[in-house]
């Protein structure tokens, strides 16, 4: 065997080893991530009695548990009866939060990105601080003040509290998106006689639609996923949202596993699907300043 062949053999062995290492790692990553998800989905979609047999692979597929959490078919629903009202409350509250934080975020974000006025930098920093700051710090005063303002057990109160979390986010993100639009285009529009409002509507909006849509969507997700504010502000069942509905299932002495997993599956669909639709914009968001380097 000549030198060349030995070298080739060495190279192809190391190439092969690398390929094997890659595929083994990929399988480990897949199992690590998918196992808990598999367990949720399989529990939500198998007949309830099968759960107590301890089988990893279901023998039968059934949507009885999914129907049960919406109040169909089952007669002996006990805990939290049905999640339908929770889903409805979460949906309309999250939509209102999304609309308000996007409208105010577009106006404020545009001002922070484009207009020159004293205090602008402080306001920009404040919006980042406010977004990054954990909400637990204001949990106590929010409850205390909202009790005084009669905003406990009211959808308005919950919406206002959620805005404290989503509005800093939309401000910061939209400021970033508006900054990426070249100033020249706007200046050209000014010279052509467009005023500020006209320029924003005709030039800025169309150019930043993807950013606005992505930011609005994420505001919806933040509102839907929130636990703390509905937990402290809402005690009436008819006003409760889906995150606390899940908690109620978990608090039961005898946890209805199939319904807990069915409800989890349903509750996770809207935020997760929306997240995947806008994922590439979010990634470009907060750390964008750093990635560009």
């Amino acid at each position: 065997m000549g030198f060349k062949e030995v070298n080739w053999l060495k190279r192809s062995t190391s190439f092969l080893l690398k390929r094997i290492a890659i595929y083994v790692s990929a399988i480990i990553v897949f199992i690590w991530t998918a196992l808990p998800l598999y367990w949720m989905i399989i529990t939500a979609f198998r007949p309830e009695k099968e759960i107590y047999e301890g089988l990893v692979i279901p023998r039968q597929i059934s949507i009885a548990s999914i129907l049960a959490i919406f109040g169909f078919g089952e007669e002996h629903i006990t805990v939290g009866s049905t999640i339908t009202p929770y889903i409805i409350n979460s949906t309309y509250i999250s939509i209102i939060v999304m609309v308000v934080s996007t409208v105010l975020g577009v106006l404020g974000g545009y001002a922070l990105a484009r207009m020159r006025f004293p205090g602008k930098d402080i306001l920009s920093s404040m919006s980042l601080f406010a977004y990054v700051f954990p909400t637990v710090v204001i949990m106590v005063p929010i409850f205390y003040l909202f009790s005084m303002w009669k905003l406990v057990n009211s959808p308005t109160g919950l919406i206002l509290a959620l805005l404290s979390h989503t509005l800093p986010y939309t401000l910061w993100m939209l400021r970033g998106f508006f900054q990426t639009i070249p100033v020249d285009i706007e200046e050209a529009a000014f010279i052509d006689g467009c005023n500020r409002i006209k320029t924003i509507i005709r030039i800025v909006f169309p150019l930043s639609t993807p950013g606005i849509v992505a930011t609005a969507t994420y505001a919806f997700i933040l509102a839907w996923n929130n636990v703390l504010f509905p937990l402290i502000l809402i005690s009436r069942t008819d006003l409760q949202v889906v995150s606390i509905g899940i908690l109620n299932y978990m608090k039961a002495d005898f946890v209805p596993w199939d319904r807990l997993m069915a409800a989890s599956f349903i509750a996770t669909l809207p935020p997760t699907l929306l997240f995947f639709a806008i994922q590439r914009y979010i990634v470009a968001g907060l750390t964008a300043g750093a990635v560009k380097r």
Partner: protein
Amino acid sequence: MRLKIREALEGYAFSTPAFLLLFLVLFFPFAYVIYISFFSKTFGYEAVYSGLNNYMMIIRDPVFSYSIYISTLYTVIAVLFKLILGLAFAILFAQEFRGRSIVRTIAVIPWGIPLFVVAAIFFWFFDYNLGLLNIILKSLFGVKYFWLGPDLVIPSIIYVNVWKGIPFFMVNFLGALQTIPRSLYEAAEIDGASAWQRFMHITIPGIKYVMLIVCLLSTIWTFGEFDTIFFLTRGGPGYLTHIVPIYIYHQAFSNFNVGTAAAASVITVPIFLALISVILWALRR
């Protein structure tokens, strides 16, 4: 000059609605929590000024010292694991292989799932008799564990946090890895640099800013996160998982002691402020 004033007025007109609302629901409550921390206050009773009494009380409270300790331990270990595994995942997905895009999509899913659903999933996954983890361990090794029992609860909540948090690290690292020019690696290879040397001298310097920001953000969010631990353990068994957010919640809503809960909230603020200032500084550079 007139134009400048006009522009400034427009700027205020545009940003006032947002910041007025933020003042009402965020900045004012934030100032109020500092104010109320100097009062002895229980829900339903009048507030009485008590100076630094609340701070003295929580500093002497062994549960509070423990909660600071356990929050710090939990945060440091979880962020460390997320950093290492997130980087490993990112390097894996930077390679070409069959099925890459589907495995990568699945690996990102935990990021998109709400925390309360993650908690519910693991509550069931960890179940002693019927949970998948014990079913697998029983059939492979013949053992079962109380995952949320006193011995394993801390590793278990770290595991949940790491599972949920890896994709945030991975996706950001993957983006940063793509900005490193391929030619650097090729040049290093020609010069005879080993894979480890290339990793230490090209990969790490190339993504260090992203690493810094991602780690700091994750540290803040892990330290301040309430949802999963509250849903999984409610701070128990005993006080074992009584992290700071849960301590604050219990002071306010189980002991109805608004003053000490406020003082506990205020004490954590400098920690967050310091971390956020570093982020701001890094983003500006």
